[in-house]
């Protein structure tokens, strides 16, 4: 019973990591690649470490595995946000299907020096 449960959870975790790698290979854009990679790989590694925490009967190993999961959940979004911001400031090209860019309006306002409420009230979304 225990081994069947571990087999199911570890299969789900490894499939999540497989989907993350397929996403990083097939997505058309850097930002979509970042979005698909971070969430799916965190889920997969979290499930595999939950397997490890369940298998070993020692309490110290369980604490260690759960601390790794906690650390990953804490740090992975921060790293993804920082590398995404760097990519945006470096000028990495967006996909042609992306039509909402809220950071673009903010940077225009800063360059003008005069905040105009016209754009802020009605953001133009051109499809």
């Amino acid at each position, binding site marked *: 019973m225990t081994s069947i449960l571990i087999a199911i959870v*570890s299969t789900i975790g490894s499939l999540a*990591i497989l989907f993350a790698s397929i996403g990083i290979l097939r997505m058309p854009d850097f930002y979509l*690649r970042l979005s698909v990679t971070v969430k799916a790989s965190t889920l997969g590694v979290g499930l595999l470490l939950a397997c*490890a925490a369940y298998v070993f009967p020692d309490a110290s190993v369980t604490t*260690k595995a759960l601390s*790794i999961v906690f650390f990953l959940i804490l740090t992975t979004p921060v790293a993804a946000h*920082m590398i995404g911001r760097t990519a945006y*400031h470096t000028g990495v090209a967006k996909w042609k299907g992306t039509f909402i860019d809220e950071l673009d309006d903010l940077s225009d306002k800063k360059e003008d020096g005069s905040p105009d409420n016209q754009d802020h009230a009605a953001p133009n979304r051109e499809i």
Partner: protein
Amino acid sequence: MTLNLYFDYVIFPILTVTVILVFIRLFKGPELVDRVVALDLLITIGIALITVYSIRSAEAIFLDVAMIFALIAFLGTIAFSFYLDKQEKK
């Protein structure tokens, strides 16, 4: 079918295919940030491989290595983004 055989014949091949796919993106990546994200994902898959190997060989001491890998992945990505930002401002 024991759990060790299942790990040997299902979980490890899936993770191996995953590493190969990420390496294709690491060599192909058009921008530098693509390669940074691929490297980050590669270290995360390394944590997963170490965890599965630790379960399969019943050695809990390998999880220490996984913890250090998690630290190094975070610091590496932060350092890459910091220096890319600095290079852009110059």
